C-alpha cells in the first residue's frame, strides 16, 4: 500500500481502479509523410470542423446536465478553435514550412500558448491550458486515435498530471468515481466541472501519472487530502462502507432543525476547500461553513494571489451563504504542500515544521494580503477568522494585533470595516493545555480532531503501518476534548468540532453529552449525519415536542 497526500478541492471519498490519462500531444507524435500542402490544409479544415462538432456536443451535454456556466467553458473553446489567428498560424506552418497538419496544429498551439505563458498574471497564464487542449483535440482527430476510447465498465478514478474540461467530459460516466491530479490549479475550469459533478477531486497529489499504476485499486479521501494506492482489505472495506453510508440520501436533504432534549439546537456546518462547493453546502442545508480551507488559492502557483483575487473568493462565500456564518481558516501551508510561491525548503518532518500560523507570522507580507482581503469581504456577510496550528497565546495575540493594524489601514482608505471575530483552532496538545488562557482572547474554539489525534498520540496519520493506532476516539483524545470544552464553557465561548470525529456517528452521543452542539463536516457526510440525528434520541422537531 502506498499512502500519499494532496489537496482536496471537491470533498468526499471514492474507490476504484486507476485510469491513467496522459496527454498525447507531447507524448506520442505520430511520424508521417507530409503530403502536399493543399492536402494537409484540407485535412486541417476537416479536423477543425470535427473538433467543432465535438465541442458543440460537449457544450450541449454540459448545458443540460450541469448548467449554463459550465457550458460556457466549451463555447469559449469553440471560439478559440474557429479563431482566424489560430487558422492563420496553422496555414502558414503548412504552406510555408511544409509541415503536416498534425505537426502544424502542435507547433501552432505551442506558438499561441507561448503568448499566454509569457504573461505575468496567473489567470492569463492558465489560458495556455485551453490552447493546449484544442491542439490536443485536433491532434487526436488527425491521428485517428479518438474513436475507440470509452470509459471503463467498472468503477474508476482518473489519474493525470492535469485534465482539461474536455477530457473530463470525455471520461464522464456513472462509473467515474473521482479524480487525482499531480498538478492541477485552483483556477482551472476543471474545478468548476468536478464540483458540479460532485466528483471527489485531489490536486497537487504526490504521485506521478505513470502508466504502471493503471488498474491498481485506489482509495481516495479528498476531505482528508489523502489517497491510498493498493489499499489493504480492511481500509478498502472501510471506505466502501463509508461511501455506501454517504449515499443514503433522501431525495431532498432534511432541512428541519434538530434539537436536544434541553431544547438546544444542533448546528451542522460544512467543511469546504473551494468556493465551487458552495452549491452542495446549500443543497444540504448546512447552517454555515465551519471550515473554509483557504490554501487552494495558493497551490501550484509561482506568484502569490493578489488581494483582489482573494477578496473575490471571500466575497463570493459571504454572499453565497446569505448571512449565515463562514469561518475562514487562515492559510495553513507547510513544506508538504505544493506551493512553489513560498519557495519552502524540503523538511524532514513537515507535520512538525514551518507551517500554518508559524509561516504566516514569518511571512507577514503575504499574511497581511490575506487579512486585508478577508476584512474587505466581511462587509458582504458573516465572516469569521480562525487561526490554525496555535501553540501559544502570543501567536493568537500577534494575529489579533496584525488584524487591528490592517483594519485601521483599511478604514484610513475610507472603507467601512465590520468587526471580525477571531477564533482559535485547537489542534495541538499545547493549545489544549493553554485553552483556558486562549478562551479569554478567542471569540470561539474549533477542534481539529485530525491533527489533534496525530499530535496527541504521536501517530503519523499517513503511516499505513500505524493505521490501527490512529484512533480519534482514543480516550486520551477525548480527555483533551473535555478539557477544551470546559475552558470554552467557563469563558462562555462556543466550541465546535471540525475533524473526522465530527461526523462519526458512533461518537455523536458522547460528544453531545460532553457539550458539543456544533459539528462541521464535508457536505457529503451531512445526509447520513442528519439521518442519525432524526433516528436517535436527538429529536428533530420544534423544541416544545421533544422528549
Amino acid at each position, binding site marked *: 500500500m502506498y499512502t500519499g497526500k494532496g489537496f482536496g478541492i471537491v470533498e468526499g471519498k471514492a474507490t476504484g481502479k486507476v485510469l491513467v490519462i496522459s496527454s498525447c500531444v507531447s507524448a506520442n507524435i505520430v511520424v508521417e509523410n507530409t503530403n502536399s500542402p493543399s492536402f494537409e490544409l484540407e485535412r486541417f479544415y476537416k479536423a477543425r470542423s470535427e473538433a467543432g462538432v465535438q465541442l458543440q456536443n460537449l457544450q450541449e451535454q454540459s448545458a443540460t446536465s450541469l448548467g449554463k456556466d459550465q457550458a*460556457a467553458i466549451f463555447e*469559449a473553446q469553440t*471560439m*478559440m478553435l474557429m479563431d482566424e489567428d489560430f487558422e492563420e498560424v496553422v496555414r502558414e506552418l503548412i504552406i510555408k514550412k511544409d509541415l503536416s497538419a498534425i505537426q502544424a496544429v502542435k507547433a501552432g498551439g505551442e506558438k*499561441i500558448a507561448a*503568448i499566454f505563458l509569457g504573461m505575468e*498574471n496567473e489567470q492569463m497564464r492558465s489560458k495556455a491550458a485551453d490552447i493546449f487542449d484544442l491542439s490536443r483535440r485536433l491532434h487526436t482527430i488527425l491521428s485517428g486515435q479518438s474513436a475507440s476510447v470509452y470509459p471503463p465498465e467498472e468503477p474508476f478514478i482518473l489519474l493525470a498530471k492535469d485534465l482539461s474540461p474536455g477530457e473530463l467530459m470525455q471520461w464522464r460516466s456513472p462509473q467515474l468515481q473521482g479524480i487525482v491530479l499531480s498538478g492541477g490549479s485552483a483556477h482551472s475550469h476543471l474545478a468548476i466541472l468536478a464540483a458540479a459533478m460532485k466528483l471527489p477531486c485531489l490536486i497537487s497529489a504526490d504521485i506521478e501519472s505513470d502508466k504502471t499504476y493503471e488498474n491498481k485499486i485506489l482509495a481516495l479521501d479528498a476531505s482528508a487530502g489523502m489517497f491510498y494506492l493498493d489499499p489493504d482489505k480492511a481500509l478498502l472495506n472501510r471506505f466502501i462502507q463509508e461511501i455506501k453510508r454517504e449515499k443514503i440520501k433522501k431525495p431532498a436533504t432534511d432541512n428541519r432543525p434538530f434539537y436536544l432534549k434541553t431544547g438546544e439546537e444542533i448546528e451542522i456546518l460544512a467543511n469546504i476547500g473551494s468556493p465551487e462547493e458552495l452549491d452542495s453546502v446549500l443543497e444540504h442545508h448546512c447552517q454555515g461553513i465551519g471550515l473554509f480551507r483557504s490554501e487552494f488559492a495558493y497551490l501550484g502557483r509561482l506568484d502569490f494571489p493578489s488581494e*483582489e483575487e482573494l*477578496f473575490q473568493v471571500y466575497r463570493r462565500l459571504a454572499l453565497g451563504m446569505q448571512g449565515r456564518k463562514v469561518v475562514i481558516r487562515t492559510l495553513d501551508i507547510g513544506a508538504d504542500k505544493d506551493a512553489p510561491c513560498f519557495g519552502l525548503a524540503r523538511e524532514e518532518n513537515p507535520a512538525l515544521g514551518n507551517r500554518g500560523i508559524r509561516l504566516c507570522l514569518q511571512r507577514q507580507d503575504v499574511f497581511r494580503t490575506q487579512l486585508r482581503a478577508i476584512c474587505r469581504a466581511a462587509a458582504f456577510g458573516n465572516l469569521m477568522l480562525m487561526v490554525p496550528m496555535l501553540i501559544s497565546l502570543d501567536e493568537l495575540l500577534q494575529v489579533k494585533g496584525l488584524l487591528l493594524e490592517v483594519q485601521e489601514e483599511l478604514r484610513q482608505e475610507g472603507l467601512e470595516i465590520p468587526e471580525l471575530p477571531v477564533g482559535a483552532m485547537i489542534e495541538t496538545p499545547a493549545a489544549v493545555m493553554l485553552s483556558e488562557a486562549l478562551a479569554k482572547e478567542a471569540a470561539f474554539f474549533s477542534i481539529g480532531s485530525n491533527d489533534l489525534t496525530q499530535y496527541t498520540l504521536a501517530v503519523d496519520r499517513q503511516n499505513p503501518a500505524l493505521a490501527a493506532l490512529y484512533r480519534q476516539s482514543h480516550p486520551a483524545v477525548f480527555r483533551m476534548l473535555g478539557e477544551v470544552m470546559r475552558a470554552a464553557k467557563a469563558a462562555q465561548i462556543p466550541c465546535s468540532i471540525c475533524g473526522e470525529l465530527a461526523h462519526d456517528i458512533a461518537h455523536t452521543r458522547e460528544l453531545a453529552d460532553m457539550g458539543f452542539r456544533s459539528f462541521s463536516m464535508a457536505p457529503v457526510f451531512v445526509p447520513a449525519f442528519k439521518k442519525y440525528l432524526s433516528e436517535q434520541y436527538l429529536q428533530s422537531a420544534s423544541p416544545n415536542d421533544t422528549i
Partner: protein
Amino acid sequence: MIQFEYTITDPLGIHARPAAELVKTATAYRSSISIQYRDKEISAKKMIALMSLGLKQSDKIKLSIQGEDEIEAAEELKHFLQEKL
C-alpha cells in the same frame, strides 16, 4: 466612425468566458470593430487576439467602430462592457 473609451472594472479582467461573449457580440455586426490598448490594436472579433491583450481591472481600452451598423454596434458594446466587464 464611433470611438469611445472604457475602463475595465471586473476584478478578474477579461477572462475566457466574457471574452467569448464580447467576441460573439462584436461578430453579430457588419462594422469593423477594433480595440486599442496601449500600443496594440486588435479586432474585437478575434478571440485569441483579445485574450492575448491580457486586460486586467482598471486597464483603459479604446473601441473604434466603423461601418453601416456602427450606431447600434456601439450602443450594444457599451452596454455589454458596463454590464459584464
